């Protein structure tokens, strides 16, 4: 698997060269969010707002009202938990085209609970007018800013940084509100998002080896969540669905899928992999994935549970593909 590096940096520079209205606001974390080069290349369009996210958010509303397209950069946790009221009253209510580029989503930071945005999807999903994107690989990073631009309203992005794998073909870009079908099958459907898709791909490969027919969808648009492919995949499988996400199981991808199942009267079991209504602590990604059971092995256990049988897959079977780790705060 190819690792790519600093794709957001490249992408925001490309966007800036095409769209002169695009401006970047940073709450003293721009250098940690791949906009250092942007600041050097476009100093007049890079606004240092200091460690003051509330003001940054409402200030962006003023800029957006005057035709600028602000892209806010800091860690995702500071773009919803800390500033929810500003996000709602200054940006969401008037439906302004402001893009929240939230970095180190979920457990992709060793910074601990204060730095981990683990319930952001559930929270932001309740806010009218917002779109939510949760990118899964380098190919998606290359397109997500365009989708945010085209949405022309408030957008919350769970963005990945630095070394990111390219899981999807570079010529198959991310599409708005469209699931990516990674595997077709009829036994169990797996929905995965963010960095968990890589885990789900490992699990799917191991399950296929045991003769299990897996439908696997990667989800990168969490709001809106109306792609008919989701219903279609749910309908075609025999045993049920498993979701795996980089955050709490309450309010995020698992909940989105549950709502679709209920609305479409799809009476099959749904099992969710994610943080089980708890916060996480500070440690490496590899440790956190295993410690909180957010990994391929857990996904396989859930599939076994749905099918009512032990498939005999061992940890060693999953060793084929290894990750790069995130070690920096």
């Amino acid at each position, binding site marked *: 698997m190819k690792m790519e590096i600093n794709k957001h940096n490249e992408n925001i520079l490309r966007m800036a060269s095409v769209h002169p209205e695009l401006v970047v606001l940073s709450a003293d974390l721009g250098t940690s969010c791949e906009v250092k080069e942007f600041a050097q290349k476009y100093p*007049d369009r890079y*606004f240092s*707002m*200091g460690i*003051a996210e*509330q*003001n940054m*958010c*409402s*200030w*962006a*509303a*003023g*800029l*957006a*009202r*005057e*035709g*600028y397209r602000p892209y806010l950069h800091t860690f995702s946790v500071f773009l919803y938990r800390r500033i929810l*009221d*500003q996000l709602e*009253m*200054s940006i969401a*209510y*008037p*439906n302004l085209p402001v893009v929240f580029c939230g970095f180190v989503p979920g457990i992709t930071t060793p910074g601990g609970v204060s730095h981990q945005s683990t319930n952001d999807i559930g929270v932001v999903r309740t806010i*009218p*007018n917002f779109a939510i994107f949760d990118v899964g690989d380098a190919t998606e990073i290359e397109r997500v800013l365009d989708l945010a631009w085209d949405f*022309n*309203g408030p957008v919350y992005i769970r963005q990945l940084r630095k070394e990111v794998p390219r899981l999807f073909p570079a010529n198959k870009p991310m599409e708005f509100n469209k699931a990516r079908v990674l595997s077709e099958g009829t036994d169990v459907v797996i929905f995965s998002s963010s960095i968990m898709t890589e885990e789900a791909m490992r699990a799917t490969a191991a399950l296929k080896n045991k003769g299990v027919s897996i439908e696997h969808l990667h989800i990168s648009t969490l709001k809106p969540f109306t792609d008919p492919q989701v219903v279609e995949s749910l309908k075609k499988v025999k045993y049920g669905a498993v979701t795996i996400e980089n955050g709490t199981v309450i309010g995020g991808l698992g909940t989105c899928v549950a709502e679709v199942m209920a609305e479409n009267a799809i009476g099959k079991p749904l099992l969710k992999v994610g943080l089980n209504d708890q916060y996480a602590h500070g440690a490496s990604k590899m440790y956190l994935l295993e410690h909180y059971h957010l990994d391929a092995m857990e996904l396989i256990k859930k599939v076994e549970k749905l099918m009512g049988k032990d498939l005999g897959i061992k940890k060693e079977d999953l060793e084929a593909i290894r990750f790069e780790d995130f070690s920096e705060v």
Partner: protein
Amino acid sequence: MADKVYTNEEILKAATKIRKSILGIALRIGGCYLAQACSSADLVATLYLRILNLGPSLGNKEALPFPGVPSPTNMDYQKGSTYNGYNPKNPDYSKDRFFVSCCHYASVIYCALVEAGRIDASAIEKFNVDGWNMEMIGAEHSPGFENTAGSLGQTISIAAGTAHAYKMKGHTGNIVCMLSDGEIEEGQDWECFQAASFYKLENLIVYVDKNGQQVEGYTKDVMPTEPLVERMHAFGWECVEVDGHNIDAITEASKTPHKGKPLMIICDTCPWQGIPLLKPMMPKHYPRIPKEQKEEFQKFYESM
């Protein structure tokens, strides 16, 4: 400057009519934000009739049914800023913009719009009436309002962001923002004050109605914001304090030189100014007319 030149007398008369209208509302519905009306009527009248450089209103003279909340399919509703002459489709950037942060002063703004000939007096009959755009606490669609300011502390930042945009684009209009003193307790105001001076927003002018009271009592007892002038100076702003009931003083203060700095004008005001019957009730955020005093207030209303 407004096209018509108003004398101090005319401005004071307009301020009295604003207070009278709001007392009329209070007599009709039992209460209103009367203390805010008393404290700010002179300031708001001076802003609308003398200081603000606004184009003619583009809004409906009559009240409108609530146009619905903003959404991807509802962005072209009539904005509150159109009453201040702002045309979102074709703005005149030489004109001022007026952001009201203390939006529970909505009745004062609506009544000032009447005095400035921007809405009809009959529109006030729809104040706080279900289903209309003249809500008790204003939002984007309410006459005179740029934005939804009810959660305090945000409007100053939105105004500053607008001023930042005007500065970068070389627009000459000023961005004027009105605050009340209590809301300066919000941390976001101070985040904004430091950023506005960092970005040298000399096109940002803030008027504060310092009436010294808030919901739970006097500001000095709830959470003092003084010494505000010194604090603002320390934050890199130009700042002056004047008698908020003296039209000449407000006018002069608006001309305070503030090269390279945002300007704050603190208007020291009295929450029963013009309606002394209110004095024994103070401090009071939302005075109600006591049953036993209704006649007395009614009489005073007629004498105004």
